[in-house]
C-alpha cells in the first residue's frame, strides 16, 4: 500500500470544564489512504466528531489537543493558524450535521460559493460565477442559476446539504470529512445525499471520512469502518469483515441491537448499562462495565490493539472468535 494520505498518532483531546478534565479522544493509531472511504461509527460522546474538529483546529480554546495528525507528512496539531487556514477546505474539507445552520443566513448561496472559490482557486467574479454554477450542477441542484441568488433559508435541508457539499468541492480537497451529513434529514433525502456522496467520490477520487451513529449509513457507503467507544478506537476493519465478523464485544452488541428489516422478528439484544461519563477515569477497557465477558483484568489494564486479520484490528483483551457473538453466550443473558 502506498503512503497513507492522513496519519493520526496518539491523538488526545482533553476538555477543561471548570475543575473537571475530561478526555474526549484517545486514539493511538489511525490511517487513511488516498481516495479511501472510511466510516467512523460511535454513539454520542464517543469522540467521533471531536477527532476531526481537533485535526482541523476547529475546537474551542478550552480543549487541548495532543499527539500528531499529518496529511502528506505535514503536521496539523499545533500548526500555526495560517497553515491550518490554508489547509482547511483545500486539502481537507468538512461538512456538518445541520446544513441549514451551517450556511450564513445573511449571504446568498452564490456569494458563499464564490468566497470558497476565491480562497482556494483564486477565481473572481465571472469565473467564480461560472464555476459555482458548475459545482451546483455537479451536486445535482436543478435550476442552479436561480439558486445562486437565493438565501439559505429559501432552500430545504436537503438542498442546503448539497450546497455545503458543493462548497466543500470548491477547494478540490484530497479528503472530505462528512460529520453526520444526513442525520438531520428525512429518510428519502438521506438516500439522495448518500448517493450523491458516492457519485462525487467516484468522479473526483477524493478520500472520504463518513461519521455516523447509524451502522447502516456507514455500511453501504465506505470501504473500511472504525468503531469508537468513549473516545477510543475499539475496532477497525473492512466493511464486510466488520459487519460479517465483528470481534469486539461492543461492535457485536451494536449489531445485535439493530432490529432486522427482513426475516422473523427476534428479541433484540440490548447492551445493558449506559455510556460512561467523559470525566470518569478508568485505566482499563472503557467498555468493561457493560461487557458480558469482562474479566478482572479488563477493568485494570488498557486493552491491546490486536491485529486479527488483514486490516482488521480490535482493542480487546479477549480473543473473541470470528462468527461467535459474545451476546449469544449464556452469561450475556439480560
Amino acid at each position: 500500500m502506498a503512503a497513507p494520505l492522513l496519519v493520526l498518532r496518539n491523538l488526545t483531546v482533553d476538555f477543561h470544564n471548570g475543575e473537571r478534565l475530561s478526555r474526549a479522544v484517545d486514539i493511538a493509531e489511525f490511517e487513511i489512504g488516498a481516495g479511501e472511504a472510511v466510516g467512523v461509527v460511535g454513539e454520542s460522546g464517543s469522540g467521533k466528531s471531536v477527532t476531526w474538529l481537533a485535526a482541523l483546529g476547529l475546537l474551542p480554546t478550552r480543549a487541548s489537543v495532543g499527539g500528531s495528525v499529518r496529511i502528506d507528512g505535514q503536521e496539523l496539531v499545533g500548526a500555526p493558524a495560517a497553515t491550518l487556514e490554508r489547509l482547511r477546505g483545500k486539502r481537507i474539507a468538512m461538512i456538518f450535521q445541520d446544513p441549514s445552520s451551517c450556511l450564513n443566513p445573511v449571504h446568498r448561496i452564490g456569494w458563499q460559493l464564490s468566497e470558497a472559490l476565491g480562497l482556494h482557486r483564486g477565481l473572481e467574479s465571472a469565473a467564480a460565477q461560472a464555476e459555482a454554477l458548475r459545482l451546483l450542477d455537479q451536486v445535482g441542484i436543478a435550476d442552479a442559476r436561480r439558486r445562486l441568488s437565493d438565501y439559505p433559508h429559501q432552500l430545504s435541508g436537503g438542498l442546503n446539504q448539497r450546497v455545503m457539499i458543493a462548497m466543500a468541492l470548491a477547494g478540490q480537497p484530497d479528503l472530505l470529512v462528512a460529520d453526520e451529513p444526513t442525520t438531520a434529514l428525512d429518510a428519502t433525502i438521506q438516500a439522495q445525499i448518500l448517493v450523491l456522496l458516492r457519485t462525487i467520490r467516484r468522479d473526483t477520487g477524493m478520500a472520504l471520512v463518513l461519521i455516523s451513529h447509524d451502522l447502516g449509513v456507514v455500511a453501504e457507503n465506505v470501504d473500511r469502518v472504525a468503531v469508537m467507544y468513549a473516545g477510543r478506537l475499539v475496532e477497525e476493519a473492512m466493511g464486510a469483515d466488520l459487519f460479517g465478523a465483528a470481534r469486539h464485544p461492543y461492535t457485536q452488541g451494536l449489531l445485535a441491537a439493530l432490529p432486522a428489516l427482513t426475516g422473523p422478528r427476534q428479541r433484540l439484544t440490548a447492551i445493558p448499562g449506559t455510556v460512561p461519563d467523559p470525566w470518569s477515569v478508568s485505566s482499563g477497557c472503557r467498555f468493561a462495565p457493560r461487557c458480558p465477558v469482562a474479566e478482572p483484568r479488563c477493568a485494570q489494564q488498557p486493552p491491546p490493539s490486536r491485529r486479527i486479520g488483514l486490516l482488521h484490528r480490535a482493542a480487546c483483551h479477549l480473543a473473541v472468535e470470528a462468527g461467535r457473538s459474545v451476546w449469544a453466550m449464556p452469561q450475556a443473558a439480560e
Partner: protein
Amino acid sequence: MLTFAVSRLLRAGLTILFVMTFAFVVLRLSGDPALLIMSVDAPPEAIAAFRKAWGLERPLWEQYLAYVGHATTGDFGKSMRDGRPAIELVMERVPATLAITLPALALKIGIGIPAGIYAALHRNTFADRLTMAVSVAGFTMPSFVLALVLVLIFAVTLGWLPASGADSPIHAILPIVTLGTAGAAIMARFTRSAMLEVLGQPYIRAASAKGVTWPRVVARHALPNAAIPTVTIIGFMIGSLVAGAVVVETVFAWPGVGRLLVSAVANRDLSVVQAILMVIAAWMVSANLAVDLAYGWLDPRVRGASAGGH
C-alpha cells in the same frame, strides 16, 4: 416588500392612536379636564367657554373623536403659563435637545460597539473583564449622579468647563459626555452578547472549516449577523433620546424638550405635557419604523418572509 411597509405603517399609526387614547383616558380619569387645564381659579365663563370649545358636554365618544381630531392636527391647547400654543413651545425646544442627544448617540455607538466587539473577541481575558466591569459601573450609575460628579470635578474643582447653561458649544460638553457614557456602557454589553451569540453559531465554524481566515470570518460572517440585534438597541436608543435627556437637561439647565417636560409636569401644565407626549410618541414610532426597515435590509429572512414566504 410593499405589504411589509404598509403593515409597519399601520402599526405605527396604531401606536400613535394608542398613545392618544392613553392620554385621553388618563386625562378623563384624573378629574375634570376643564378644571385641570384651565386651573381652578379661572373665571367660570372661561371654563364654560373651554367646555364648549372642547365639547365636554357632548357624549364621551364624540369627545374622544374631537380629541383625536385636535391631536392629529397638533392642537393640544395653549400653555397655561404664557398662553402660547403648546405645540409651538415644544417644537422650538427640539433643536436644543438634538444638539446634545445626537452627539451623545454618536458617542454611544462609536465607543460602545467597538468595545463590545473587542470584548467578545477576547472573551474571558483581562481586557474583556475590564470592559464589562466599566460597563456595569457605567449603567448602574444614575445619570444625575454622573452629571453632578462631572460638575464637581470639571466645573467646581478644576474650573475647566461651565457647570450649566447653554451659552456656547463648550456648555454642551458635559451634557453630551454624561448622556454618552451610560449609553456606551449598555451598547458595549449588548454588542458583546450579540457577538458571542453569533460566534457560537454553526455557520461560523463551517466558515472556518472552509478555510476562511479568522479576520475575514469576523468581518464578513460574524459582524453582519451581529448587526441585526444591535440595530434593535440602536433604534431603541434613538427612540428614547428625548426621554434620556430629561434628567441631564435639568441638571445642566439645558433649554431642551426634557427640561420643558419637567417644568410642565411640576406646574401641571397639561397641554404642554400632552404635546410633548405626542411628539415623543411620533419620534419613537418613526425610530421603530426605521429599525424595521433596517431589519429588512440587513436580514434576508425578514425580507423573504415579507415578500410572501417560502
